[in-house]
């Protein structure tokens, strides 16, 4: 098993954290894991992205030409990464603020309304967990149990009381997916 994923959006949307939770979940399943962020000034309001690779074998490059799964959370990221999905791969995008939808026919495209769901849940900080839930419903690369374990491991202890809210957001995200 090898899954090459990129998650891209605005700085502040929780892109890097979402990647980190996914990476920790992979660790819980004893997989090889690489997490590579875009680092630098673009994290302050500009676009941010993170590459996560989960594999049963040694991982070669953390820098990739194309991805099995691309998760994009704004128009700039969609424009930049639609062409980087492997043929037959998966593209997941949040409909919020998107005016130019994806056009490729050789990949599976999923639209999720995660931002709207966030407004409904009235919890802006749960946005990335909703997106992660949707990703797992489409591609169950790690189990929900291990995601929750991974989340706990990636959080400092003082935030553990937020675990139930995060689990709720994750499961809500899973329920959003329709092809």
């Amino acid at each position, binding site marked *: 098993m090898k899954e090459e994923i990129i998650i891209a959006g605005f700085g502040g949307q929780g892109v890097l954290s979402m990647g*980190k939770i996914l*990476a*920790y979940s992979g*660790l*819980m399943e*004893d997989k*090889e*894991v*690489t*997490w*590579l*962020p875009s*680092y*630098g000034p673009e994290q302050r309001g500009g676009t941010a992205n993170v590459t996560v690779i989960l594999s049963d074998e040694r*991982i*070669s*490059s*953390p*820098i*990739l*030409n194309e991805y099995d799964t691309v998760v994009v959370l704004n128009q700039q990221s969609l424009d930049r990464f639609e062409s980087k999905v492997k043929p037959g791969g998966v593209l997941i995008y949040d409909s919020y603020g998107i005016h130019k939808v994806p056009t490729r026919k050789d990949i599976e495209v999923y639209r999720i309304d995660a931002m709207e769901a966030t407004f409904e849940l009235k919890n802006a900080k749960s946005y990335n967990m909703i997106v992660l839930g949707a990703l797992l419903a489409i591609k169950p690369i790690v189990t929900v149990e291990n995601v929750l374990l991974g989340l706990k*491991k990636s959080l400092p202890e003082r935030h553990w009381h937020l675990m139930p809210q995060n689990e709720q957001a994750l499961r809500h995200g899973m329920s959003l997916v329709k092809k």
Partner: protein
Amino acid sequence: MKDDVTLMKGNEALAIAAIRYGADGYFGYPITPQSEVLECLEAQMPWETTGMVVLQAESEVAAINMVYAGASCGKTVFTSTSSPGFSLMQEGMSYMAASEVPALVINVMRGGPGLGTIHPSQADYFQACKGGGHGDYHMIVLAPSSVQEMADFVALGWDLAFKYRCVSMILADGLVGQMMEKVVLPPQRPRRTEEQIRQLCPWAVNGRKGMRPKNIVTSLELDDDKMEENNHRFQATYRLIEKNETRCELVDTDDCDYLIVAFGSTARISMKAMEIARKQGIKVGLARPITLWPFPVKHIREAAKNVKGILVVELDAGQMIEDVKLATECRLPVEHFGRMGGNVPTPDEVLNALKEKFIND
């Protein structure tokens, strides 16, 4: 999953591995992309557990001289910085080499020259391997390409530094420093006792207690004949290091038609290019120098025995390529591919460069 298997950034792995090695002190000044080393050390607060000192110096010049002082006392000390900061440290590097003190210096390279960018680069290869400071000296230069190696080379670097009384350098780049990977951490070792230091470092300046003659640690020797003698001794040590400590990883070099030589992050990218090439029926192998000094001359020569060409992939304008040409005595075509200024190539760019230079007409 064991507690000692965890996920962390390369920079954090350096910090944790140093505490666990039983380090006595860290002296450094923050600079991107390696600031997590100091941040992580301060978060760990090892002064409350092992007694290790963590000090943010007022500058890189101060930091390297604090390392020089600690090392002169036989203590296990280190610093970390990134390219512009390493330039500031060169005087100290040369003095430590001439004083034959063991220390660990980490450079997580960023795009230059000048203040440059904060993104990955390998353009300090010459500075690390060919001097940088003045005079005929070398340090052992280790090039990690994974977070696991970031952790492992801390221990290796110190072991070699104490064995040969020289400076070891970990030459990483922003990519290896910033990415997170699974890492198996070494067990916690106690810091050396004063008695252990006396035994391991009989040359150290740590108080005579009336038991031994006076020790002097200095790089100054105004008698030319004695200074030449010192130089002969340094060179003898370097020859011994070349003989015993040269390290290189060879991947699929048995049957390859083309050889890629790359270290650190570019070796990882090249490995993916190699996988893609093999799927296309192009037999590519990889030689990954783990020690940049001493350079793995014999490994490269052996791996290149039956190849049609060598591509040297670096994040610079072509530095290591000189050593590859020397190793192969310019008997076969050696070409360079690189990105600069903080840019990193994709595996496809590497493979296309190989095709353009050797295969396409």
